């Protein structure tokens, strides 16, 4: 089985509605995706702000290679 086949076997299966099981909630699992998206936004911005202090502020309008 290739890795693509693994992906094709519905990676979202755990997110699909399941019959209710006594004593088991689904809330925390659902919240994880939101946490991942938020983490991306926070980390990218925080790291970029830090990186900017190293790189400087001479970026060109059309990308980093402008400003000639």
């Amino acid at each position, binding site marked *: 089985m290739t*890795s693509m086949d*693994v992906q094709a076997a519905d990676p979202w299966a*755990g997110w699909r509605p399941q019959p209710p099981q006594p004593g088991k909630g689904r809330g925390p699992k659902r919240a994880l*995706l939101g946490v991942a998206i938020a983490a991306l936004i926070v980390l*990218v911005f925080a790291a*970029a702000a830090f*990186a900017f202090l190293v790189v400087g502020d001479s970026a060109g*309008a059309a990308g980093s290679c402008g400003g*000639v």
Partner: protein
Amino acid sequence: MTTASPTAAGVAQPPVFRTLRRTWLAGTIALSLAAFAAAIALAPAAGDDPGAALGTLLFLGSSVHVASTAWFFTLPEVRGHARTHPGRYIVAPAALVAGTAAAAVAVPYSRFQWALLAFFAWQFFHFQKQNLGMAALAGICQGGGSLSRPERLGIMIAGVGGIAGLLTHPDLLQLGVDARLRPLFPAALAVFAAGAAVGLYGLARRTARPRPFVAVYLISLLFFAPVFAFGTPYPAVAGLTIAHGFQYLLLVGLLSGAPRPGHRPGAGTLALTAIAVLGGIGLAYASHLHGSPDGAARALYGAYLGAVMAHFVVDAGLWRLRDAFPRRLLDAGVPYLLKP
């Protein structure tokens, strides 16, 4: 809402799909509009550096977004696909990096800048191809179907007009060359306006026009409007650069956050963040070496240009939805964008 919504095929969709679909639509619209607004509001006086805030947005929208493409190669299925299609994913990127590195050393920068006109034409064509894809995804995920022929044609004609506008006015790209084509700038504006008219005609003929789709479509169609509205580089061009990069980071961020069997939640997102930021720092550093008297430094600058072009080539393959592999890749990672 906690109940599952059925698809056209009758298969239940997880409720989270609706949230993620809305996140992508609202995020794409908000990031694009905010990018244009920020570029206009934060633009420096002519000849000045952009300053910390606009410089950081440009760093994210240019170098960080280009570097994030490398994250795809952390996926085993992408590496496998690259091995079976080495021309696009291995040979062409390596040749572009090596070729431009050698050219940057061998050719004086005063002449090399002329080649940058072609580089920028490719870059903005790449932007407009992404706009086409964004509008198509917005139509599909809203149940309005993909783009009609006039809608596609309108976006591409407007893009050609925008690119022509930039090439006839290279001051906007901060290039020190003058092809003496400035008298053709109004003709470029006419092409852009014709594309907008064709696109609006296509939009008017559409039977279903969900508002989020209309917003994404208009952003795509009128993407190059700032080129004709402003006469200095940052208000005219920086918004395009930032909007394109942020649209890309949002979509790749959602892909990286998709569940993968055998992987911890969030692992893909963390890997993407690390690759994009560290790679972005390296690219931004190399991009400023064009004027160096040192040949090795200029080779790094050339390699930077090659890496950006490799990003164009790899993206053109990985997002081509008429091919089976990109469809499977996106259907596994962002299925909520391929089904209403």
